[in-house]
């Protein structure tokens, strides 16, 4: 029988979610800076707007009344503390959760989070383009350090709750990224495969660290259909929907084996995996990618709730 506190399990799970989210926003900002630099105006403005939509932040940003440009949006996404969707707020929440479960973490795992948080305490403005890139680079590096530390932790439920939170968060992020970008990329009348388009698709790949993976897997150049397929159904790519769905099942199975707790969450996760194994990217595009992704995001949220029930988070 395991004696992990319910509160500890919930904090670890959310620690996994918040670190993943901070990392995702950092990569999104980085890729968008690049896209902005490459684009002719007003394509840059669209780039920042889509970054806001992907991170569920468009309304909060509109409330600030600020202009939609790199300086404002990158500040908003990195260090604005007036809303919960900035890197800084994610790190703060991650750190709070980590502090509450210090005993379940190794020193290395804790210090990676704490260092990233301290980095943000030092500054009050992300600064210009290169300073912003340096800042997100730091976040990415610390989050890599955190992931590394997690993998060196004891293989027990502490590690798995963090990884479970990470997998659920990653699934949501990737689905949202494809959904928003795909909509944006195929405006009516726009010629698919143009220059802006190419940059846009590269941006997506960068956000999920998949540029090199794409080149290895698809020799015939950048094609929207192939990008979609890679991000959705290729389990080799750690941030693909298929990989997240797969990892959720695996981690739940390991938790079940160790704690004896299996149930609704396992059943939902396995059913999702079975469906994912039959999913083909091109068919989804034809039958309605947006609807598919919306359903996926809803299901992911239901799985999140089932996990909370199964492990008595509340």
């Amino acid at each position, binding site marked *: *029988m*395991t*004696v*992990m*506190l*319910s*509160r*500890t*399990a919930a904090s670890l799970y959310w620690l996994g979610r918040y670190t993943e989210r901070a990392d995702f926003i950092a990569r999104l900002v980085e890729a968008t800076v690049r896209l902005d630099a490459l684009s002719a105006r007003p394509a840059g403005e669209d780039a920042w707007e889509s970054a806001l939509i992907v991170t569920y932040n468009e309304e909060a940003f509109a409330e600030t009344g600020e202009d939609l440009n790199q300086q404002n949006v990158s500040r908003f996404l990195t260090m604005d503390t007036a809303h919960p969707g900035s890197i800084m707020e994610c790190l703060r929440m991650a750190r*709070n959760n980590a*502090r*509450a479960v*210090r*005993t379940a973490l190794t*020193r290395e795992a*804790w*210090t990676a989070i*704490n*260092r990233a948080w*301290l980095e943000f305490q030092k500054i009050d403005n992300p600064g210009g383009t290169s300073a912003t890139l340096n800042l997100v680079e730091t976040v990415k590096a610390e989050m890599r350090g955190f992931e590394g530390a997690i993998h060196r932790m004891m293989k027990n*439920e502490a590690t798995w709750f963090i990884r479970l939170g990470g997998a659920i968060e990653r699934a949501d992020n990737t689905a949202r990224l494809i959904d928003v970008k795909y909509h944006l990329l195929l405006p009516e009348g726009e010629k698919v495969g143009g220059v802006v388009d190419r940059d846009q698709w590269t941006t997506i790949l960068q956000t999920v660290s998949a540029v090199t993976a794409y080149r290895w897997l698809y020799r015939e150049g950048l094609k929207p259909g192939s990008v979609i397929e890679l991000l959705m159904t290729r389990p080799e790519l750690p941030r693909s929907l298929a990989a997240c769905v797969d990892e959720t099942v695996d981690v739940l199975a390991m938790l079940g084996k160790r*704690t*004896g*707790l299996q149930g609704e969450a396992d059943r939902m996760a396995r059913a999702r995996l079975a469906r994912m194994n039959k999913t083909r990217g091109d068919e989804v595009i034809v039958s309605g990618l947006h609807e598919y992704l919306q359903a996926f995001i809803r299901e992911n949220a239901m799985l999140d709730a089932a996990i909370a029930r199964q*492990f*008595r988070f509340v």
Partner: protein
Amino acid sequence: MVNTRAFDEIWGTGGPDAPRTEFAALSRWIHDTPSADLERRLQSAEATFRQLGITFAVYGEKEASERIIPFDLVPRIFLPDEWRSLSEGLIQRVEAINAFLNDIYGKREILKAGIIPPELIFRNPQFRTEVAGIRPPHQVWAHICGIDLIRTGPDEFFVLEDNARTPSGVSYMLENREAMLRLCPELFREFRVAAVDGYPDMLHGTMRSVAPAGREKDPLCVVLTPGHYNSAYYEHSYLADAMGIELVEPADLLVDDDIVYMRTIGGYVRVDVIYRRVDDDFLDPLVFRPDSMLGVPGIMAAYRAGNVTLMNAPGNGIADDKAIYSYMPEIVRFYTGKDAKLPNVETYRCREPDAYQYVLDHMHELVVKLVDGSGGYGMLVGPASTKAEVAEFRKAVEAQPERYIAQPTLALSTVPTFTDSGIAPRHVDFRPFVLTGKGKPQVVSGGLTRVALKEGSLVVNSSQGGGTKDSFVLLDDPGTPTRSQRQSGGGRSQQQQQGG
């Protein structure tokens, strides 16, 4: 002002050029290590403390709400003989404290013998009628004591305060040692220093030894913290981690049928021993403060029923109360039959007319304290205060004399300390930790040295700008060199002979 020629624990009374013979090597190290080098090591230590989150929260301060306690590299050192006699005094004191608590919440023999005025107990808010009649396992109440000591000369140690409730600071003892081992390894080649890292095991052993009757076989032990916003949270998590036991918050516990459980992902699990770092007032809203959001309703009933051990026991405040403190010499004699090996600082109780008058007449020379104050607040250091400050404090004492005690301003010992203007003596105090379980009390070979970083200051509290130092307890020299490869001969081998 304050006596600047106080006894220095390294330099003695002769200053840097004539250190105490046992510490000539340390004095040389202080002299020979360039300031820039010390500065670099200090910065490295502080960066580590910050990264590890060894911070404490200062309530009411927003900006610096997480601060690190300044750390000083020059250790304070106890010789083997000094430590032996200190330990004997500490054990005697802690045994007396436990006997006193057991008596005062039991038969009250000490009151019958007329040693302490009864109203000092019964009108004392620290006296908890709620725990009267309870018999904790092995009759231990103060499992963890942090006895604050000060020193005024080579053999003059005094107890300044008995902390028998939830003394903190042990994590600094452990972390400071880790920092010293990394930053000043040469000192550990020079001196044979007793290890402190066995503390978590000792503590865990103590916890297990006081498990409730019938639960001794494999008791489930936890550390109870008010939560991660508490100023000492780092220490709570550190200790739980080092012992490999759960760190729980009040909301993680619940009581059913007088049994305490914690909520786990697998359901409710019974808890047997709780090292609680939540104050009495907030422990159980059904018994103590009903407005406490931190408490565990019913935990006191479970404790009373003998189904869970709380350490330290609720009600201990009556033993370390400043008003009771002045009776400690009598208390020690009453329970041990012997004179206290560790003396008290002379204390004037303003509740007594003669003492009251003396305090009013000599306020500018005395340290005057609120009986229920702590952390350096509610305290006047006469010689270091302005006339206006003295006058203001005087009014407060006149209004409620029974709430105040006064002590002479002692020339606290100093230890050389790294300051902005180089190495200089700074006043220190010392908190050793004593653990009591089933058997005899154990003194950890080390402790927390707090240092007042401001020149001449006697206030060492971290909330008032104090810092910490590592405290070396030296082991007896075995007579033969412990290392076969000595890096250099000369001074070191000479020192070796002197120490032997």
